[in-house]
């Protein structure tokens, strides 16, 4: 495959762009691999890349039931930040932010990481106290996050309605400047291309039906739509479908799968300089480089695998956006969609070993795992290669639901992306 550079762009422009080679081959499964990763989202593809690059394990397959990046990776609103409350989470997400910084160069693929700042609005006294607590805790962890007065918030994001008689008054905001957005598809494509270049097989349109265990209980491989594929190590990174796959290996998960929806508007000229989140009214908004407003909502209330979600939620979200940004209230929305997110009881991820030898799991990222993509991928690769967790993901075990050592971001943030 071609290395992307100014020179290769120029050369291909001069030859009518007819000589670009494919970015990764469409692999067919071999009989056996050292490691199989179930799910070609950003997390799974990234893990394959880091297995090859950092651990020299290249006999790896990433198996995907649909097309790569077609799960939540290609459906999310791409908010990236790391200002989480607890030490464990702040360190984990900040590790991901460090990797985002250099990812375009590392992958030789423009993932369009834009540090435009994420501002979280406080609408009531509880929000003010909770965000300030986050800011103090972040400072102790060396994570950038600061408090803005109402006037400062308005200056940072001019479309914001800060009128004192607004339905959702703005009492201030927390701002993480290092935070922002990235191009979600490019993250999947960039990792896929870089992994394939190092010898990883990416097998699409091949659902994993179940995990097969050997007589001694350890992992033997996976049953797929294209037959049995052997591997002594299998890592499940299947977001909303994790419960179903893990069940086939006899492991019951503390997960529930909910639809999460988003929508985009018609494209307009640049008007929105940053990302704004309002957890209290459940509305998240930024503007893509194409000019569309990208708007995210909260999860639907019931468990579902339908990848659809209900209209009442969209109505609620758009109503909130129109209150906070009245400037947008005559805009037309172009399309909406849903993804299935895997939610844990404490809203923290599970990334580590399982009771089954050779079986690893990376899940529970719920409504907020895009930002973690490079970090989760890097740590999953480490855990699989060394058969033990890295110190950053060591607290994010499955056992914490037995020991009670939860990482309770749910109580800390109610809901957040």
């Amino acid at each position: 495959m071609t290395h992307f550079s100014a020179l290769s762009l120029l050369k291909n422009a001069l030859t009518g762009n007819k000589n670009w080679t494919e970015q990764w081959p469409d692999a067919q499964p071999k009989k056996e691999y050292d490691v199989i990763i179930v799910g070609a989202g950003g997390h799974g593809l990234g893990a394959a890349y880091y297995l090859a690059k950092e651990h020299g394990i290249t006999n790896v397959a990433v198996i995907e039931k649909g097309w790569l990046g077609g799960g939540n990776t290609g459906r999310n609103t791409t908010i990236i930040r790391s200002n989480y409350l607890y030490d464990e989470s702040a360190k984990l997400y900040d590790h991901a932010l460090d990797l985002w910084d250099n990812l375009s160069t590392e992958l030789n693929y423009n993932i369009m990481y834009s540090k435009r700042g994420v501002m979280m609005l406080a609408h009531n006294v509880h929000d003010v106290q909770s965000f300030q607590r986050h800011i103090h805790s972040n400072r102790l962890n060396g994570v950038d996050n600061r408090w803005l007065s109402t006037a400062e918030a308005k200056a940072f994001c001019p479309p914001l309605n800060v009128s004192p008689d607004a339905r959702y008054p703005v009492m201030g905001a927390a701002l993480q400047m290092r935070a922002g957005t990235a191009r979600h598809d490019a993250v999947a494509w960039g990792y896929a291309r870089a992994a394939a270049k190092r010898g990883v097989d990416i097998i699409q349109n091949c659902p994993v039906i179940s995990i097969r265990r050997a007589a001694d209980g350890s992992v033997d491989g996976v049953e797929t739509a294209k037959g049995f594929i052997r591997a002594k190590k299998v890592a499940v990174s299947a977001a909303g479908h994790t419960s179903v796959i893990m069940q086939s290996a006899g492991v019951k998960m503390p997960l529930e799968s909910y639809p999460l929806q988003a929508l985009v508007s018609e494209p307009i000229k640049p008007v929105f300089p940053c990302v704004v989140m309002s957890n209290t009214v459940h509305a998240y908004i930024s503007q893509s480089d194409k000019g569309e407003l990208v708007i995210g909502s909260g999860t639907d209330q019931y468990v579902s695998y339908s990848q659809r979600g209900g209209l009442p939620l969209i109505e609620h979200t758009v109503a909130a956006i129109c209150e906070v940004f009245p400037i947008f209230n005559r805009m037309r929305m172009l399309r909406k969609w849903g993804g299935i997110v895997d939610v844990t009881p404490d809203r923290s991820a599970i990334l580590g070993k399982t009771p089954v030898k050779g079986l690893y799991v990376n899940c529970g990222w719920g409504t907020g795992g895009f930002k973690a993509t490079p970090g989760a991928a890097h740590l999953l690769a480490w855990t699989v290669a060394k058969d033990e967790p890295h110190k950053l993901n060591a607290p994010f075990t499955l056992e914490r639901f037995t020991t009670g050592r939860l990482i309770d971001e749910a109580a800390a943030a109610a809901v957040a992306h």
Partner: protein
Amino acid sequence: MLLIHCPYCVDTLPELEFAYAGEAHIARPANPMSQSDEEWRDFLFIRSNPRGLHAERWRHIHGCGRFFNALRDTVSDKFSVTYKAGRPRPDLEKAVQVPK
């Protein structure tokens, strides 16, 4: 929008009148003192989260206010049946085709 049948009001009404309340038939242990950590984990945190029929609780918050149970397919979001709290889960598995 889902249309949900309240077995108390005997009426089929829009989702907006109802609040979802999690998986059904998870009984609080009769003798909490003798529960092991694993049993607590299963009770508090493990959920069946099936792709297919799911027994779940709903509450008619903007109506009669009562809790009831439902069987719903999590792939199509279609309700098969709703029934009063305290009743056992109806055995529909044989009758209903669960799409894969």
